[in-house]
């Protein structure tokens, strides 16, 4: 399989930084939500439950999903909210990175007894989580299960066409231009990417909050250029990388803490630095969507803003020693 290009790694690293660090405070909590069995997706030894919520925007709309890392404590640098642990990655290799969350999602069973309903917590080792679609996969049938979970309030997508698929607030990360120049004698190059972050909010206050958070998140800051040795934190089916393949026999109470999302950086390339950060509100006076007798449920053009910046790094991979 061919190696992921550096552009893709930069794009994914920026996406990851904005979603997991810059907008880390834009999360919501949904509690005691019923889990409904989905018979079509079940097999003889696996049971799939879907969280049924009437929350708007939907926690599982495109670009959102449940939180897969635990609450941030303190990072190793001012630009990094997370402290990496050392352990095994999803392929079983030694790695430094982050474990799957252990207190952002709690599944309950509710058993009716003569003295009332008894609620018990289902151990995290008994199920896998599909963080994208908001599902729980177990090996046994659960009794009247419910769930409490944290979810990303802001939908973050990387293409214009995906904006309409989610209710606001939506953030689009658009990396649209590249310029590479030499920066020293003897090889190596400075790679500069042009980035626009488009913000679509549901009211002016929300727009201002998002603009400020994103601006402050990149102004005089840098982020890791991740190597994605085992891909992104979530696998193609929305489960934490490596969890699905973990043999049942090896699962114990500590497995979430020893299975890490590998956050190794690309070798011989610097961190990603931000510069020339600007922001502005986007107003489109020609667009008339707020007739007094017509309410638009999703008026994505009404409260827009844009944060623009250059993202650069020093690439020394072509220097041979």
């Amino acid at each position, binding site marked *: 399989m061919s190696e992921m290009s550096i552009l893709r790694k930069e794009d994914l690293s920026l996406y990851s930084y904005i979603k997991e660090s810059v907008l880390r405070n834009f999360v919501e909590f949904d509690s005691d939500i019923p889990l409904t069995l989905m018979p079509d997706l079940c097999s003889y030894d696996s049971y799939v439950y879907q969280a049924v919520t009437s929350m708007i925007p939907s926690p599982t709309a495109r670009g959102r999903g449940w939180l897969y890392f635990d609450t941030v404590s303190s990072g190793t640098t001012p630009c990094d909210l997370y402290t990496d642990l050392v352990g095994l990655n999803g392929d079983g290799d030694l790695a430094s990175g982050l474990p799957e969350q252990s207190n952002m999602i709690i599944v309950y069973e509710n058993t009716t007894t003569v003295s009332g309903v008894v609620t018990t917590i289902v151990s995290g080792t008994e199920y896998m989580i599909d963080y994208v679609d908001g599902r729980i996969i177990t090996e046994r049938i659960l009794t009247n299960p419910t769930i409490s979970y944290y979810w990303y309030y802001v939908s973050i997508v990387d293409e*214009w*066409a995906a*904006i*309409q698929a989610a209710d606001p607030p939506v953030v689009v990360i*658009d990396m*649209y*231009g590249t310029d590479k120049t030499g920066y020293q004698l003897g090889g190596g190059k400075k790679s500069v990417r*042009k980035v*626009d972050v*488009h913000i*679509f909010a549901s009211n002016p206050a929300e727009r201002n909050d998002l603009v400020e958070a994103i601006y402050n998140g990149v102004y005089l800051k840098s982020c890791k250029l991740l190597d994605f040795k085992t891909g992104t934190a979530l696998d193609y089916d929305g489960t934490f990388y490596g969890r699905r393949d973990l043999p049942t026999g090896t699962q114990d109470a500590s497995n979430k803490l020893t299975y890490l999302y590998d956050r190794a950086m690309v070798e011989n390339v610097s961190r990603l630095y931000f510069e020339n950060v600007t922001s*502005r509100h*986007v107003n*489109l*006076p*020609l*667009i*008339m*969507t*707020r*007739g*007094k*007798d*017509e309410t*638009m449920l999703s008026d*994505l*053009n009404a409260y*827009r803003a844009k944060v623009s910046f250059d993202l650069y790094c020093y690439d020394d991979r072509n220097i041979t020693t």
Partner: protein
Amino acid sequence: MVKNETLSAIKDVVKKQAVETIIEFSEDIKARIVNSFDLALGGVVITPGSKINIQNIRSSLIDQLNEFNYVTVGNSISMHVPDMETFNFSKNPDLRLLQAITEGVIGTFVLVNGKEFVSIYGHKPINEETLEESFAPGDMLYLVPYSPKVQSAEAKLKTKFTKYPFSNMPPLRLFEEAENFANKNLEDKLRVDIEKRIKEKYKGS
């Protein structure tokens, strides 16, 4: 030691040449912006009878580029390159339409004039921004979402509103290339032109 009068004269020469160079350079900037417009929108096919006229938008763009203030002379000399913040889109409906294209919109829209707007909603547009030039309601342009209400108005009026061909389109970066060109080339051009002018002026002295 250089006399004060000589120093002052050199400053005047530098200033004059810098302004001349910037004015000359601004022609390149305009050409690049118009070229970006042509590359992006030149091939767009607009149905006959549409409220969008690409040639009119292009003409308005050129007129406004000609009115743009590229150079400010004071204690220092500054060159300005049009961008989304400094370019004046508020002259007429065509430029407003260009602004919508350059910002990109989400959703499917139709274009209506002021009279059609009243037919659909039963009232004039609310919080309408004033344009620098005045236009009759029939000459104004509004983008309205192609909602069931608009579709039923179409049926009632027995008409089809002009579909906005740039619905759900990402931003068009009209000024980007010209800005990059200025960032990369203006300084060198200024240095070369000023050196040349000073050499000519003080040749043999």
